C-alpha cells in the first residue's frame, strides 16, 4: 500500500506493507543510509530518528504509524540549532571511532539538547543510556553534550 511521509521536510511516497519499519523505508526504499541498523528490536539506538522532534527507534516504528508527523534524520539534523551544536561538539571532542552508532547517538543527543538546554549528568545518562557504542565512546559523548550545551547556536 502507498504511504505519504514527510522526511526532512520533503514529502515522500512509498509502496510497502503498513507494518514495514521506518528504518527500512529510509535505508532501502529511499536510499537514506545515514540511519543505521543495529539490532532490529529497539535495544541499541543506532536507528534513532526524530518524529516530531522526539527521539524514536525507527527499527520498530511501523510506517503506518507515522501519519502527518515530521520525520527528521541524521542527514538533516544539522539544520537545527541543537543538531548543529551537537555535530560540532562531536567533531571538537573527536567522539566517533568506528562511527557506526554515532548517527543514533547524535539524534538522541540533539533531541535531549533541544528539550533540555542544560542537561545534568543524570539527564544525559537517562537520554543516552539506550544508545550502545561498542567502541566505548561514552566518556567523550558526555563531554561533547556538555560542550554543546555551553555553546551558542552560531559557533560555540
Amino acid at each position, binding site marked *: 500500500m502507498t504511504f505519504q511521509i514527510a522526511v526532512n521536510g520533503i514529502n515522500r511516497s512509498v509502496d*510497502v*506493507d503498513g*507494518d*514495514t*519499519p521506518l*528504518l*527500512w*523505508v529510509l*535505508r*532501502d*526504499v529511499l*536510499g*537514506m*543510509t*545515514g*540511519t*543505521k*541498523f*543495529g*539490532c*532490529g*528490536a529497539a*535495544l*541499541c539506538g*543506532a536507528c534513532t530518528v526524530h518524529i516530531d522532534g522526539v527521539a524514536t527507534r525507527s527499527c520498530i516504528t511501523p510506517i503506518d504509524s507515522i501519519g502527518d508527523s515530521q520525520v527528521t*534524520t*541524521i*542527514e538533516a539534523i*544539522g539544520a537545527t540549532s541543537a543538531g548543529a551544536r551537537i*555535530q560540532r561538539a*562531536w*567533531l571538537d571532542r*573527536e*567522539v*566517533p*571511532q*568506528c*562511527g*557506526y*552508532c*554515532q*548517527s543514533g547517538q*547524535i539524534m538522541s543527543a540533539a533531541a535531549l539538547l533541544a528539550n533540555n538546554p542544560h542537561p545534568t*549528568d*543524570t539527564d544525559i*545518562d537517562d537520554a543516552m*543510556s*539506550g*544508545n*550502545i*557504542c*561498542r*567502541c*566505548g*565512546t*561514552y*566518556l*567523550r559523548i*558526555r*563531554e561533547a553534550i556538555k560542550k554543546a550545551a555551553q555553546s551558542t547556536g552560531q559557533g560555540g
Partner: protein
Amino acid sequence: MIRDRNVQARDLDQTGSASNLSRRRLLQAGAAAGGGLMLSLSLPFVGRHSEALAADEFAPNAFIRIGSDGRIVLTMPYVEMGQGTYTSVPMLIAEELEVDLKQVQLEHAPPNEKLYANPLLGVQATGNSNAMRGAWKPLREAGATARTMLVAAAAERWSVDAKSCRAQNGEVVHAPTGRRLGYGELAAAAATMPVPASVALKAPSEFKLIGTPAKRLDLPAKVNGTAVYGIDVRPPGVKIATLAQSPVFGGRVKSLDDTAATAVKGVRQIVRLDDAVAVVADHMGSAKKGLAALRIEWDDGPHAKLTTADVARELEQVTLASGAVAQNIGDAEKALAGAATKIEATYQVPFLAHATMEPMNCTVHVRQDGCEIWVGTQALARVQASAAKTLGLPLEKVAVHNHLIGGGFGRRLDVDGVVRAVEIAQRVDGPVKVVWTRADDIQHDMYRPNWFDRISAGLDTKGIPVAWSHRFAGSSVVARWAPPFFKNGLDADSTEGAVDLVYALPSMHVEYVRVEPPGIPTAFWRSVGPSHNVFVVESFMDELAAAAKQDPVAYRLALLDKTPRAKAVLALAAEKAGWGQPLRERIGRGVSLQHVFATYLAVVAEVEVSEEGSVRVRRVVCAVDCGTAINPDTVQAQIQSAVIFGITAALHGQVTLKGGRVEQSNFHY
C-alpha cells in the same frame, strides 16, 4: 615514551554501575584512477605499475598519487574501523611528503597482497594491533621518496642544486631566489625523475605532525550520515537478503516450506543452501518478514546436545595431562617442591561475541564472467581469494571494494559472511546485499575462545616467587586462520601474555594444549590471547601478593627491576590512582600490568561492590607506554575504548550454548 598519556576515566563514576553498564552494552552475549607511476614496497623501486599512466600524474609508489591539479590522494593499505588508522597512516606519509593533512584525500586500497600486505603479517590484513608498527618505516619512506623526486623535478626546472631547494606545505621552495612551485605543477616532471635508491627520513626533532594530536580525517562524514559502511552500498538494482543459518553449528536444512514467505509483499526469491535459507526481497523489511514466515525443519547434526559446560569440562580434563611447552626457565617443578609456600589456582574464561554495531553484511554481484563485491573487511585479499575459490574464478575476475567498518574487533578478519553472500548471489540474478539479523550475528559469530587454566607458584620464606607453573587449554585461532603459524602445538597469539612475563621469575614453565570446541567456530577478538592470559597472570599475581601478605603494587614493583618500562607505567598508574589512599567501605582498588603488542600498560580500577553484590566501576586509571604516539589523541581514545570493552567483557560478557544453540541473541539488558 608517552608516560603522560595516562587516561583517567573518572566519568565512569556516573555510568559504571553494573546495572547501568548492563543496560548500555551487550551482556551475553587501483591502483590510481587514471593510473600513475606505481612502485611497490614488496618489489621496491623496480618499475612501473601495469596500470595505464596519466602523463601529468605523479605516483611514486602504491600509496601516493599527485595530480597536475595538485590533488594529493593517499591510498590506505590498512582499513579504518575506529582505531584511527585513516589519520595516523596519512600522518606518516604527510610528515615526510611535507603536506598538511588538510591537503590529502584518502582512498581504500584495492586487494593486492604484493602492494599492500602488512609487512608484519605478510598478508593484506588489518589486525593484531600492528598497523602502525608495520607502517612506521615504509610509509614514511613512501612520503620521503615522493618528496625527493618532487624536489629533484623543481631543481631541474630551475637549473639549481637540489640541495638548495626544500619542500614545505605542498610546494618546493628555492630559498636563495624565493621561487616556488606547487606539487601539482611538478607532478608530471617528478614522474620522470629517477627513483632514489634510499631516502633520508626526518629526525624526530623535525616532526611537525607525528606526536601532535591531529583531527581525525574520517570524522566529518561520521557525524552527518554520509560515511559509507559496507552495509550502506546500493549498486543499481540491488536486492536485499537476510538469512536463517542452522541454529546448531554443523546442522543442515532438512525440509523447507516457503509458501507463506513467498507470499510476502516485496519478497522476490527464496534461496535454499545446505545449511541456511535466505530470503531475497526489495528491502530488509520484506526480507525479515519473509524470514519469519519460513517453516524450516533442521537436521541438527552431531552437536545437537552440546552445552558450554561440556566444553569447559573437556578443557578442565585435558589440563591434567601435559601440553606443548611454550616457555621453560630453570626447573620450576623442583623449585616448586622446595618452596616455602605453594599456591594453586584454576581459572576459566567464557566464549565472547564481537557484537560489532554494524551487523555482518556483504553485497555481491555474480556475473557470468566475474564477480563484484562490496564489503567492509579487515582482510581484503582474503575476501577476494575466498570468493574466487567459491566461484571457481581466477583472482582477477573478482573485484572487491572495501568500505568503512562499523566495528571490527577481529570479527571482520574472517570471511565466512563473504562466502555465504557469494553462495546466495550465485543463485540470484543481479546484485544482492546479504544482511544478517542481529540474532544471526550473535548466534553465528566466531567467538573469542573459552579457556581453562591451571596455575601454581612457589614462594620463598620472604614471599618472593621462586617457581611459576602454568598450563592452559583452549582453541587456537591461528591454527585455523594461518595454519603455518601454528607449530609444534603452539602459536604466538594463544600464548601472548602468558610467556615472556615482565616479572623476575627464577623458574617458570608454561604449557598450552590446543582443544577445539566441537563445531563452535572461534576467531580473533580484540587482543585474543592476552585478553585471557593477562587476566589469569595478573589475577594470580594478586594471589601471590596476598599469600606473601604484601601490597599488590609493591609486590609487583619488587619484581620489575629488569623491566624499567613496565615498572614506570605501574608506578605512574598507582600514583595517579591514589593507590594506598583510604577508601570507604565496600570500595577497593585492583591493579593489572601487561606487556603485550609491544606496549606496556598498567591499570588501576576503583570498584564498589554493593551489599547485594553488584559491581560498580567507579574510576579507571591507565598508564600506557606504547613508544612513539603518532596521534596522541587516538591513543587516548583507543585506551578509553579498550577499558570499556574490557569492563563489558569482564562483568557481563559471555556466550553460552544449550542444546547446541547459542542462548544469547541481541543486546539484551
